[in-house]
């Protein structure tokens, strides 16, 4: 692919790279600090298959230090060209190498290869950026844990397979942290959140 071809795909990113990145980060921080609460994320435009919130998360988090794994749906020339230009993040083919992963719903049935950190360095785990069609409409689950005063009811449209995968990769402090993005909204799900499926698990 020649330089002319690549530049042909380029689109504007944040209007104000400094302040828009800050606003997007603060929304993401709040999303992760208060799991299950919807936060607005409207500082970026949609890019090819990426919705505004998903693209804003990429622009706020990614740079040359963050290897990114792309789900096949997002592995397009336009997304590669824009992430390379605006973020400069290496795009890796092996999931094990990724610090961030850009996923869509069909990918959630297998999270086995993503790095969930180590007991000594639980922070060196992969962060999942998951784009959904909507942030509600699924079955109602109750979330507990840090950031939630008592219990929070969240109905993300996720298949049971995701929750099985998540708990399979969880051994606190090891685990996977996720952001769910749809349109101009985000919900955070840190590894510290306990998800209750029925009354027996309330303990």
């Amino acid at each position, binding site marked *: 692919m020649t330089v002319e071809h690549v530049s042909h795909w380029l689109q504007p990113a944040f209007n104000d790279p400094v302040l828009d990145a800050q606003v997007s980060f603060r929304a993401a921080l709040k999303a992760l600090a208060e799991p299950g609460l919807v936060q607005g994320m409207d500082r970026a435009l949609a890019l090819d298959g990426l919705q505004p919130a998903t693209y804003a998360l990429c622009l*706020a988090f990614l740079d040359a230090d963050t290897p990114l794994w792309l789900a096949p749906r997002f592995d397009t020339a336009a997304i590669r060209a824009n992430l390379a230009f605006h973020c400069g993040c290496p795009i890796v083919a092996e999931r094990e190498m990724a610090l961030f992963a850009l996923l869509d719903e069909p990918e959630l049935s297998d999270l086995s290869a993503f790095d969930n950190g180590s007991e000594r360095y639980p*922070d060196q785990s992969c962060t999942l950026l998951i784009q959904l069609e909507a942030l509600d409409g699924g079955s109602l689950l109750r979330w507990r844990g*840090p950031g*939630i005063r008592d219990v929070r009811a969240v109905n993300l449209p996720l298949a049971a397979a995701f929750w099985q995968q998540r708990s399979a990769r969880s051994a606190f402090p090891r685990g996977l942290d996720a952001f769910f993005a749809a349109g101009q909204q985000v919900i955070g799900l840190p590894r*510290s959140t306990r998800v209750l499926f029925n009354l027996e698990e309330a303990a």
Partner: protein
Amino acid sequence: MNGLNPNAASQAAGALESGYNFAYLDEQTKRMIRRGLLKAVAVPGYQVPFGGREMPLPYGWGTGGMQLSAAILGADDVLKVIDQGADDTTNAVSIRRFFARTAGVATTTRTPEATVIQTRHRIPETPLHGEQILVFQVPIPEPLRFIEPSETETRTMHALGDYGVMHVKLYEDIATFGHIATSYAYPVTVDERYVMDPSPIPKFDNPKLHMSPALMLFGAGREKRLYAVPPFTEVVSLDFADHPFAVQRWEENCAFCGSHDSYLDELIVDDAGSKRFVCSDTDYCMQRREPFEPQQEVGQ
């Protein structure tokens, strides 16, 4: 005790500097710190290593807290900085002015009006709310460091949740003094997992960490560690069943506002050693006095 209001002279001199990025740090550094903060929030109480930068003031003056503040501050934020509870001490005035100059953010001394509060060694008496972030300046982030000097060992101890020595240290207090003599930087357990140093806040402030509605971030510049306590997180001070955790209490009231509930500083007021007690939290004290002394504000 003048100068409790915003330091008018320094704020006036806080015109926005040109030639610096917004809030001093470059964007790549901010992104690195921000990614660290996300992991710190996801693993409450765990110390995330980060690439601490040199700041234009010495270690020990709040470089860790400042880097965190620089990474989170936005154009709409209102910044409050306190040093041992006071808005008018050198450290607080300097840091407040630094961000007024490099980020152009609004500053305040009023706790309820602030969205970001950087603090050295106190948590404000006024209850915090959910739209606020508290940033602590931390000298030694590792609560086990005085017991185990090796970083490799303490990291293993955290990995295994092996915190027995921490209780031994508190027990030695009881054996020597008859009670737990640790009165500041009192170790806590966060969300039933990590033992954390809450920074050198008096143990009086430890209960304010528990189920706080505000996000709490901790930054250690020299040690290059950051950690966090998300809102509504269980934070329990270590203790024993027969020696339960208790905070300091005073017989006296604040000499200015009469408060009996706040953390009091002891002042020696004459050569005979006479003592007065005043609130350590200057904004709290001022707010309690204002209804009675309206002229105080004009007098500045």
